[in-house]
């Protein structure tokens, strides 16, 4: 990402880079975030250049603290940006509502990245609803260029209205690339001292100001350059798009050769909606197709506008001809356009059906996600499963969010029973565990990662302590926020701008509230299995920290040991073990040599952790220097 002041120069940029560039061109003083896909990379990039560009960038323990820090910076007329994923925006909900009521001083923009189709999320929640609920302005870019342009605009608007502004982006913007023409980098603006009688207080007598600010936003949006019209003027067939919808629609219309038959109104200012602009176009149209990501947000509000202004019109979209779930793509959009325009489908062979090349071709294996070679989570779930087997698989495991969420699949032997939002495992376990006082008699185990521990588990742990919970809580401490790309957290000792900071010890923190704590290494398969068995059988609240760095981190510091299979010892398929190493353990480094009918190690993939050697029943796997 370029930090140069080269107005007019065009670079290929990723959407996430465009957010960074937009923040620079908007003259931000403060940036904060808790990582989440698809916008995880943004604050890392900001942290990298913050020193040089003279602003502050921070990773926060969670999204709430991130936003509240921005509000503080805004009080002195500082400009700030807070970057979160859709779940993070929901975590911020109370802060946004109260903060909106109190208003802000320096421009404050929240960028919330949604993940339609949940490419790397557990859900595809639609952030746009937050703007309505909190009464704040909402923007959504249609391209990478607009993403860059919208951030400084949103900062200006926010300052003008003294209100926070929400910018919604989606995976195809964040992870997409396009040409971006740079704008000017501004001079840094000085702060304004906070006077004795200056206030930022969220209280209900400001409710009318909140609504009045929204009306002012609507006026600005009526003439905003982020709303475009393409195609036939005064079209009877009108398409209205939000976000990524615009480009898919323009491409598909061209492919279908009907670009001159319809009008396309692309909206970038989504809340409050520019009613005048919309009614002008609705007045000429007979029917409308709304193309947007995830929920029928625009569709339903445009229907409401049509109702309010008594415009009799047919409105289609996510409620009917576009599927209600999943992301937009050229296929979905083309199909919807054909249906909308009454274009017959040529009889293309159905995917996988008769005449489809795939149906007659080779069977090709799916690529299911799994833990990396040498991942400590694979070992942790392996031993947890072993320990639970000793209890007759009687225990209940309450999971949480991180790389270890993959343990719900084959990669972790379907290793947990419960998974919801970040921080929920421990408190759900607390509630369940309490039932043991009333006749429920299964042991309850909860899990979390180290980053998740700081994010939201701490209050849950204190709650568990206060209420004398009867659970074993396991912290899978891999010294990393691995899932989202290794961002610093309070236990890692670094900050976004590269400064050192004192590490916060999970063990000391647990002990300080009176929890008994054990530490163990998941690679010590036998000892740790025994320890978990013992802890499950013990009553009360117990915390076990399983310490072993993420394989990706370990690869940077640890010398790789050579690992190989002694073909004479390997029992092969025939005799007993049934390919235990690859079938049950399932590290991508453990492969099968079909010619020798014997286990093998993929040397490119194996990182030499040596754990498979410990679990092989025939002791056929050899590790350089012997097993530790």
């Amino acid at each position, binding site marked *: 990402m370029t930090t140069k002041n080269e107005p007019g120069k065009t670079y290929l940029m990723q959407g996430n880079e465009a957010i960074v560039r937009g923040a620079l061109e908007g003259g931000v003083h403060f940036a904060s975030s808790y990582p989440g896909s698809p916008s995880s990379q943004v604050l890392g990039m900001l942290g990298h250049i913050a020193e040089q560009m003279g602003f502050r960038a921070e990773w926060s323990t969670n999204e709430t603290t991130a936003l509240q820090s921005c509000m503080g910076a805004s009080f002195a007329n500082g400009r700030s940006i807070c970057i979160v994923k859709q779940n993070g925006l929901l975590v911020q909900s109370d802060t946004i509502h109260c903060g909106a009521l109190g208003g802000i001083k320096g421009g404050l923009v929240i960028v919330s990245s949604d993940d339609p189709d949940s*490419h790397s999320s557990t859900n595809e929640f639609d952030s746009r609803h937050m703007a309505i609920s909190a009464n704040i302005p909402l923007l959504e870019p249609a391209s990478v260029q607009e993403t860059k342009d919208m951030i400084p605009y949103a900062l200006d608007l926010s300052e003008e209205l003294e209100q926070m502004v929400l910018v919604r982006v989606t995976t195809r913007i964040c992870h997409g690339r396009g040409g971006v023409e740079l704008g000017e980098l501004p001079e840094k603006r000085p702060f304004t001292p906070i006077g004795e009688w200056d206030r930022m207080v969220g209280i209900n007598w400001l409710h009318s100001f909140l609504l009045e600010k929204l009306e002012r936003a609507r006026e600005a949006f009526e003439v905003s350059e982020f709303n475009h019209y393409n195609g036939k003027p005064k079209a009877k067939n009108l398409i209205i798009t939000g976000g990524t919808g615009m480009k898919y629609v323009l491409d598909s219309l061209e492919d279908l050769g009907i670009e001159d038959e319809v009008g396309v109104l692309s909206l970038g200012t989504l809340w409050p909606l520019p009613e005048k602009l919309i009614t002008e176009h609705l007045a000429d149209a007979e029917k409308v197709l709304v193309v947007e990501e995830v929920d029928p947000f625009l569709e339903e509000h445009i229907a409401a506008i049509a109702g309010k202004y008594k415009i009799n019109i047919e409105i289609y979209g996510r409620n009917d001809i576009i599927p209600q779930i999943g992301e937009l793509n*050229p296929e979905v959009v083309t199909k919807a356009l054909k249906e909308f325009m009454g274009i017959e489908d040529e009889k293309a062979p159905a995917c996988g059906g008769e005449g489809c090349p795939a149906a007659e071709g080779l069977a090709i294996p799916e*690529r299911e996600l799994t833990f990396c070679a040498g991942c400590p989570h694979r070992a942790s779930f392996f031993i947890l499963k072993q320990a639970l087997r000793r209890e007759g698989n009687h225990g209940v495991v309450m999971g949480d969010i991180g*790389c270890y969420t*993959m343990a719900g699949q084959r990669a972790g032997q379907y290793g947990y029973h419960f998974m919801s939002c970040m921080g929920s495992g421990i408190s759900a376990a607390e509630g369940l565990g309490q039932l043991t006082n009333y006749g429920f008699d299964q042991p309850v185990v909860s899990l979390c990662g180290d980053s998740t521990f700081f994010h939201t588990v701490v209050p849950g742990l204190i709650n568990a302590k206060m209420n004398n919970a009867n659970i074993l809580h396991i912290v899978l401490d891999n010294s990393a926020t691995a899932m989202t790309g290794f961002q610093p957290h309070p236990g890692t000792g670094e900050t976004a701008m590269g400064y050192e900071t004192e590490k916060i010890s999970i063990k000391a923190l647990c002990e300080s509230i009176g929890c008994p704590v054990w530490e163990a290494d998941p690679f010590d398969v036998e000892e740790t299995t025994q320890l978990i068995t013992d802890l499950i059988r013990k009553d009360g609240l117990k915390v076990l920290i399983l310490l072993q760095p993420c394989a990706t981190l370990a690869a940077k510091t640890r010398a790789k040991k050579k690992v190989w299979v002694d073909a004479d010892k390997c029992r092969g398929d025939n005799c007993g073990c049934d390919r235990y190493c690859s079938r049950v353990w399932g590290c991508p480094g453990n492969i099968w040599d079909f010619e020798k009918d014997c286990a093998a190690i993929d040397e490119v993939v194996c990182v030499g952790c040596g754990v498979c050697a410990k679990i092989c029943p025939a002791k056929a796997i050899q590790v350089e220097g012997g097993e530790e």
Partner: protein
Amino acid sequence: MNTNVVICGIGGQGNILASGLMGSALVEKGYKVSVGETYGASQRGGSVMSHLRVSDERERGVLIPHGQADIVVAFEPVEALRILRVYGNPDTKVIYDTRPAYPLGVLIGEDEYPALEDIAAEIDANCSESYALPATEMAVEAGNAKVANIIMMGALAAMDEMPIEPEEFFMALAQNFKGKVLEMNKEVFMTGYNAIKEGRGK
């Protein structure tokens, strides 16, 4: 002029860097470029793909419609087939690395990985031209398995549909690498480029 290229592989093979470098070089030359990247939780063995769309008219949406890829560049044989089936048409050209990466289901013994000859046969039957390049092997020879992606970009640049010269790609490389690493990348790029020009693996 419109060229659609799908670059695919599995997490960790350097897909994103490769498509970004190629895209930057083309933007520098004045083309309208869009790149769409599909990756889930990366680094953990999932399929990954980038859609690179080059045009001299306007910037297109980030996804190539099914059946409209002009070129498929695959860092893994089964991925070549997977993508060709969805995005290919009889005129599509394919360049693929011949080194397999086994999915979890195969390792576990529940799925089978097709024989390489069978994969090659099906690819050939469904495209207009294919190049089977041992890019990972070539990269290991050059001293680093990780640069297979740059070798594949060299191969892509050698295709007639790609309006790019090696020197133009080197400028994009020079914005990301310096010194010895830059030289090494330029060298391996040329091995891929020359391989295609010589018709290797065709």
